[in-house]
């Protein structure tokens, strides 16, 4: 075991893993997190806590992780390199590990222009690839990247994100390989809607044997409505939602679209579950956490395994 997290144990035992995500609130009210956490509990092996996603200021990821942990949910700390330099990143990693966080996800972060503070200075001292390397160095070498010895190495199961749908397509698998070389233990993908393209990506990853060395968790997001699908397709860079997918939900009357979205998500998880090289699923039910149990249960993934 590299970090001994529940997620790591579940994956190591060969179970099909389930993660979800919890976006912290735009304020200091811990009840918002606790309310979402109640929907997550028992349905996942670990729960991501986002780090100021879309560059909108929210409660810190470390704080969100601790609130989940208090409720007995295993947290997965998301960390972007947009807002902190290597000094702050290392410091927060040490702090999170000291507080018992055992999973983390290394991300670049959306550009700050998308948030409420487009005039903010961005940092990008190191990139997400180098953050993976940084965490691995601290965990496995017991030293800071500067070479100084750590008083206690942080323990993290190290994750990274991949977007198989961004351009140029041909470097998407090589980039995953780079992230593995840097030290990634697991991968969570961008929301998958274009299954054909994802299959092509996975096939190339398999051809190179990458799936045997890194745990790939396929990302899914249930669509609430045709409107949401169209909005995401138009507004979110790198989000690939094929027209037939949109049509399938748009063909339903408005009041039945949410149920259809859930049905489609369950179908998709079942299909992903059968694919060689997919070790689990990452369900991003954005501001729809109350549907997690229905989706994960519907896909036959409950109860979650208990691995000692």
């Amino acid at each position, binding site marked *: 075991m590299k970090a001994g997290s529940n997620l790591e144990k579940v994956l190591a035992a060969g179970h099909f893993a389930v993660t979800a995500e919890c976006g912290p609130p735009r304020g200091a009210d811990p009840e918002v997190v606790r309310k979402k956490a109640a929907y997550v509990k028992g349905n996942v092996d670990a729960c991501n806590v986002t780090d100021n996603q879309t560059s909108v200021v929210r409660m810190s990821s470390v704080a969100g992780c601790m609130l989940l942990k208090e409720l007995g949910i295993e947290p997965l700390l998301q960390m972007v390199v*947009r807002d902190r330099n*290597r000094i702050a990143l290392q410091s927060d990693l040490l702090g999170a590990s000291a507080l018992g966080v055992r999973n983390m996800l290394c991300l*670049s*972060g*959306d*550009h700050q*222009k*998308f948030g409420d503070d487009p005039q903010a200075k*961005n940092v*990008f*001292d*190191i*990139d*997400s*690839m*180098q953050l993976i*390397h*940084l965490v691995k160095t601290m965990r496995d070498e017991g030293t800071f*990247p500067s070479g100084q010895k750590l008083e206690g190495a942080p323990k993290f199961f190290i994750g990274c*994100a*991949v*977007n198989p749908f*961004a*351009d*140029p397509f041909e*470097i998407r698998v*090589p*980039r995953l*390989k*780079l992230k593995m*070389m*840097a030290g990634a233990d697991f991968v969570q993908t*961008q929301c998958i809607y274009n299954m054909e393209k994802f299959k092509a990506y996975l096939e190339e990853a398999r051809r190179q044997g990458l799936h045997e060395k890194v745990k790939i968790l396929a990302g899914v997001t249930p669509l609430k409505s045709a409107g949401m699908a169209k909005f995401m397709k138009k507004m979110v*860079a*790198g989000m690939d939602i094929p027209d037939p997918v949109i049509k399938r939900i748009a063909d339903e009357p408005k009041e039945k679209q949410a149920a259809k979205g859930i049905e489609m998500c369950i179908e998709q998880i079942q299909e992903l579950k059968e694919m060689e090289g997919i070790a689990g699923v990452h369900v991003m039910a954005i501001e729809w956490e109350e549907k997690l149990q229905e989706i994960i249960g519907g896909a036959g993934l409950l109860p979650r395994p208990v691995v000692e």
Partner: protein
Amino acid sequence: MITGTPKPIEEILEMIDPYERIVVAGCYGCVTVCRVGGEKEVQVLASTLRLARETAGKKITIKEVCLERQCDPEYIEQMRPYIHDYQAVLSIACGAGIQFLAEKYTATPSLPGINTGFLGVTERQGEWAERCQGCGDCVLHLTGGICPVTRCAKSLFHGPCGGSVQGHCEVGKDTPCGWQLIIDRLKSLDQMDNYVKLKPYKGWNTSRDGGPRRIVREDMI
């Protein structure tokens, strides 16, 4: 070259409001090439300010000059004979020039008439684009001659991020994805080997992060 854009005339008028005698100083260097601070721009700006002040009933005396370069002491010296006859210098050189004037003529306020932009190129008539951030540790030999620090909105060393779509950056459709450009170029040069290597963390101490920088060439002193 160093590029720039004119400051709004209202902002300049407010800046020079307390003064009745000013120098408008241009520069024949970069700002002449990008047509924001050369001899012609000095004339146009001085005329505009005279007219505006006359309309407002507050006449102003303006001396128009254009120095060879505002970033070299010998050219700045050329203003010494008359500088004391004026209350302020409105410079339309880059920020380096404006500051050098302030440094050399400590009794005379030095005012910025332009907003200094970036180190860039003329992509076409009337359009300039950034190419270099002067980070002090060039890697262009590894990236197909395209700078990841400047051309990627996140200065990634292992791009492109998940926001690269059809050749443009997530910050906007007018911004090409720097890493798409790098990959296209590496492919055409048959240098994709450079892509699949982990790069060390960049040392930003050679950039502005190390504090204001200085170059000392012993061989020239």
